[in-house]
């Protein structure tokens, strides 16, 4: 199989984008990048939820914790991400209460047994994660756990891919689409990429086998100008996705515009709590006025997430910016392109 990939003959150089941050890491970790044929490049896309979350989100979380004394509950990936002026880890060392959880339900449970504290869960993640956060909010309401709230930062992936295509800043010949996002949304929401933008797509799983076969198929589809969305992960992804998960997600959330690091504001790409769940919205419940966001002028996470550069194209990579002392989120998140390049040697 690996040989099948290595021996592919390309008629021209090809640039394919992997949208999902987990794919970014797995392509490296599995060694599949090493058997790419000559002329095939893999461009990292906007698919790491931590990386695309702009500084003002964490700034607000930290300000809420400072002003209102709430306990912040979060997935572990967010802890070391730099905000404009600090990070959750740094705030914790100076007294902020931080609870790292594996599931939004763990944050809810923490609130249930600690009724004397306000617990704010940092609700980030794509379509894979948003339904889990929606369930937590529904349960909070059912169980009347009123010291629980979420800070909405969820994002939807197809609008970001559309924004990249519309911007047209970089050539992309085809897409490796996220497997677990597609398990929820299905294949249909991706068809516009193939049909309106004429880019072949493969929904891919995460085993070496999946990465190899999906890449081979995508290269062939590009060669044949077969502009369709192929489901290369049918053992998990149904063409119609998971309707129950979407029903729960859209019962709790409604689409709104959202701000993406490096890309800007994209209409319909975020999720806000519906008015019926307003009581669980940390932003509405705990008003704050955070200082103006800023970021390191040398950090090129934004260009990276738009596919304009690879991590080694950033002047800070591996010098001023390392996983131990990260300047941008792309070096902190386990799925960030900079951390993957740093860890697996880059090229």
């Amino acid at each position, binding site marked *: 199989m690996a040989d099948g990939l290595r021996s592919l003959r390309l008629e021209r150089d090809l640039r394919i984008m992997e949208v*999902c941050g987990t794919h970014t890491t797995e392509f490296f970790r599995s060694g599949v990048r090493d058997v790419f044929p000559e002329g095939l490049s893999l461009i990292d896309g906007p698919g790491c939820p931590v990386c695309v979350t702009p500084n003002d989100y964490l700034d607000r979380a930290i300000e809420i914790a400072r002003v209102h004394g709430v306990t912040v509950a979060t997935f572990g990936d967010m802890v070391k991400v730099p905000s404009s002026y600090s990070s959750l880890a740094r705030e914790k060392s100076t007294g902020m209460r931080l609870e790292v959880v594996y599931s939004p*339900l763990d944050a809810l449970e923490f609130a249930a047994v600690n009724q004397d504290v306000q617990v704010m869960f940092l609700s980030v993640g794509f379509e894979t994660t948003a339904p*889990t956060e929606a369930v937590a909010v529904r349960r909070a309401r059912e169980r009347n756990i009123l010291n629980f709230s979420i800070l909405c930062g969820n994002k939807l992936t197809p609008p970001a891919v559309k924004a990249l295509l519309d911007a047209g800043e970089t050539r992309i010949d085809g897409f490796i689409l996220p497997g677990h996002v597609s398990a929820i949304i299905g294949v249909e929401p991706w068809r516009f990429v193939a049909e309106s933008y004429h880019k072949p797509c493969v929904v891919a799983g*995460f*085993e*070496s086998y999946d990465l190899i076969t999906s890449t081979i198929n995508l290269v062939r589809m590009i060669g044949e100008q077969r502009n369709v969305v192929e489901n290369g992960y049918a053992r998990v992804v149904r063409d119609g996705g998971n309707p*129950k998960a979407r029903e729960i997600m859209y019962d709790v959330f409604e689409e709104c515009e959202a701000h993406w690091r490096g890309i800007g504001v994209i209409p319909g790409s975020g999720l806000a709590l519906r008015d019926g769940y307003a009581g669980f919205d940390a932003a509405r419940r705990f008003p704050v006025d955070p200082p103006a966001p800023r970021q390191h002028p040398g950090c090129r996470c934004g260009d990276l997430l738009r596919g304009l550069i690879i991590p080694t194209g950033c002047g800070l990579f591996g010098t001023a910016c390392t996983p131990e002392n990260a300047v941008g989120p792309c070096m902190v998140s386990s799925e960030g392109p900079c951390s993957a390049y740093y860890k697996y040697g880059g090229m």
Partner: protein
Amino acid sequence: MCLAIPMTVKSIEGTRALAEAYGVEKYVDIAMTPDVVVGDKVIIHAGFVIEKLDPESAREIEAAWDEYHRVMNDDGAAGRRNGA
């Protein structure tokens, strides 16, 4: 962040299921997949079953893997973390 791992459902009570993989057991929520039954292979993300593994296609990939490792002449221990 969209990392998700396959496990097998051992028992179900209400919206909770006990799932197992490689000898490790944990409770997971089945609100998104109410039709899971004991014995199903499922994909877990952030404490939830997000989808069932289709046994038919799962067997296909297992066969493809076995063939791959036979050709590569290894036991498949490496690169089979299964997830993400």
